[in-house]
């Protein structure tokens, strides 16, 4: 099966499931599909850094959580009508998704710029450990930040609004998340074929040669890292909106690990990898989590089997092309 068909089939499956659930009146299934779409969006962000850029970031929960907190902070100020003071300025909170998304994207891109600029001075295993450490820094900062809930997190009363939609209706909110995911995947697909994506791919495989033709691997990778962080941050804002809750758990290193798991489960560097990984993850979480309290052990065993015996993930198995790295 060619990769294009795998991608289209995965998208069609994600779209068909909630439509079936709507007809069968199973709102919880729509929520599960929404969760899968949002996690797929977060992992699509990570896939740009991890798959195309070859940057193994174990700190992407930082961007996910920053997006979540952008939503939590803006919405909580809107619901208490207390303006947000930024030094000399006073800004009102907002419950409008487009504004929240812009703030989430800007804040997580800025964080990615700072973390990336420092971490990309190194490579390989240093990069993994440093991104992990910076992720943990944001985690501890959020737990000690009592103004916004500290360890307990921050909940909001109603889901934020989007012009022309009623986001409280599950299927409408799903449609919105699906559309954002589709846009992000289109962007990633275009990026892989664009000069920037080709140069980035080359910087992963042969940095010395990229440097020799006059391009800077550092700047290419930093740009990819910022784009990657921004998309994951946007997903964080949606995820917090889905749960109407944000807490330091979104910033935890387990979250970073799970995002990597989503990408690898599906297939590294594949367009549909994050989507298939997220769908599988949510399904496993739902079925195994319902069957046994210790479902993480089974998840671990499945992961080990995939790493040791099925490199290339599900997409690699389906297309019969194995691993795309190397």
């Amino acid at each position, binding site marked *: 099966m060619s990769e294009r068909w795998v991608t289209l089939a995965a998208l069609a499956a994600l779209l068909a499931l909630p439509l079936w659930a709507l007809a069968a009146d199973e709102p919880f299934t729509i929520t599960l599909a929404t969760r899968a779409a949002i996690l797929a969006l977060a992992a699509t962000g990570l896939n740009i850094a*991890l798959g195309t850029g070859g940057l*193994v970031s*174990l700190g992407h929960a930082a961007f996910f959580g920053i997006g979540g907190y952008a939503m939590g902070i803006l919405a909580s100020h809107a619901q208490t009508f207390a303006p947000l003071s930024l030094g000399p300025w006073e800004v009102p909170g907002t419950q409008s998704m487009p504004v929240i998304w812009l703030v989430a994207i800007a804040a997580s891109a800025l964080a990615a710029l700072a973390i990336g600029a*420092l971490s990309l*001075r*190194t*490579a*390989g*295993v*240093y990069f*993994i*450990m*440093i991104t*992990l*450490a*910076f992720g*943990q*820094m944001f985690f*501890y*900062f959020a*737990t*000690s*930040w*009592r*103004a916004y809930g500290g360890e307990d997190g921050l909940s909001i009363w109603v889901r934020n609004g989007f012009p022309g939609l009623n986001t409280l209706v599950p299927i409408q909110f799903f449609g919105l998340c699906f559309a954002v995911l589709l846009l992000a995947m289109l962007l990633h697909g275009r990026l892989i074929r664009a000069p920037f994506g080709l140069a980035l791919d080359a910087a992963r495989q042969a940095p010395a040669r990229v440097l020799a033709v006059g391009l800077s691997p550092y700047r290419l990778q930093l740009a990819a890292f910022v784009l990657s962080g921004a998309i994951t941050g946007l997903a964080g804002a949606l995820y917090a909106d889905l749960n109407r809750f944000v807490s330091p758990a979104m910033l935890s*290193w387990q979250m970073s*690990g799970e995002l*990597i*798991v989503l990408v*690898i489960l599906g297939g*590294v560097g594949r367009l549909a990898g994050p989507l298939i990984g997220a769908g599988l993850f949510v399904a496993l979480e739902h079925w195994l989590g319902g069957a046994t309290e*210790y479902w*993480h*052990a089974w*998840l*671990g*065993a499945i*992961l*080990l089997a995939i*790493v*040791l015996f099925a*490199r290339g993930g599900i997409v690699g198995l389906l297309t019969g092309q194995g691993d795309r*790295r190397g």
Partner: protein
Amino acid sequence: MSLILILEQVLNGLQAGVMLFLMAAGLTLIFGVMGLINLAHGSLYMVGAFAAAGVAAATGSFLLALVAALVAAAAAGVVVETVVMRRLYARDHLDQVLATFALILIFSELTRWAFGSFPLYLNPPDWLSGPVTLPGGIRYPVYRLALIGIGLAVGLGLWALTRRTRLGIRIRAGENDREMIAALGVDIGRLYTLVFALGAALAGLAGALVGAIQSVQVGMGEPVLILAFVVIVIGGIGSIRGAFVGALLVGLTDTLGGIFLPELFKLVTDPATATQAGASLSSMSIYILMSLVLIWRPTGLFGAKA
């Protein structure tokens, strides 16, 4: 703020630092020799702590508990190395991260299944409990002082092992050129298993020793693992000396930052804001330290040039 308080906090920082060193030394050794990034090192720490708590509860002997921690962690290390890690040496770091992340999930869930979610308690032995009066009139817990002593002794032992013994020569040769020492007739597979078991035993020892001050519970290893990563990033990957210096720096910064930053902020702002800002900043202090070291030396204080 008295001088005694400051000295006490310095001792606390040293104690935290040497325990971090036990973790970081194993990690850096495993990375240096096998080129493996092992996220599951925190699980071996947890295995040591649980083994110690279990044996201490059954026999009442703290020394037996420590022996159990060493043996259990080393055994878990040997099993993990021969079943999983061995297949990962030739893989890229992404596969190693994922496989060892999977191992964390498995270890944590199995431990939760076997021991439950409630924390266990491990008490220091009677002959190490209670305070001792140090010169200068500082009363300090004997047990924590013993931890500092054990940490320093292990550090010295590791230095002697790598610099003064035949095994140490092989380990260092393995770091430099594994094909060559394999060609010279050293069983490289066995050497790897041995190094992994040694690192695991150190992690298990740290888990048991620290378990007697804190509670023994599932997930106790990961915060320590991440601190140990910060330590070896600061010290330079592969360098035991770097791990030692980095561990002390991180231990002292973490402990002293929590005490002094709020006090420092009180000089410029009101107490409530100062406590809040100090707490936030001190939780970030070791990461700021790491960033500064990275800006100055991207491969750490004692790391080889990239």
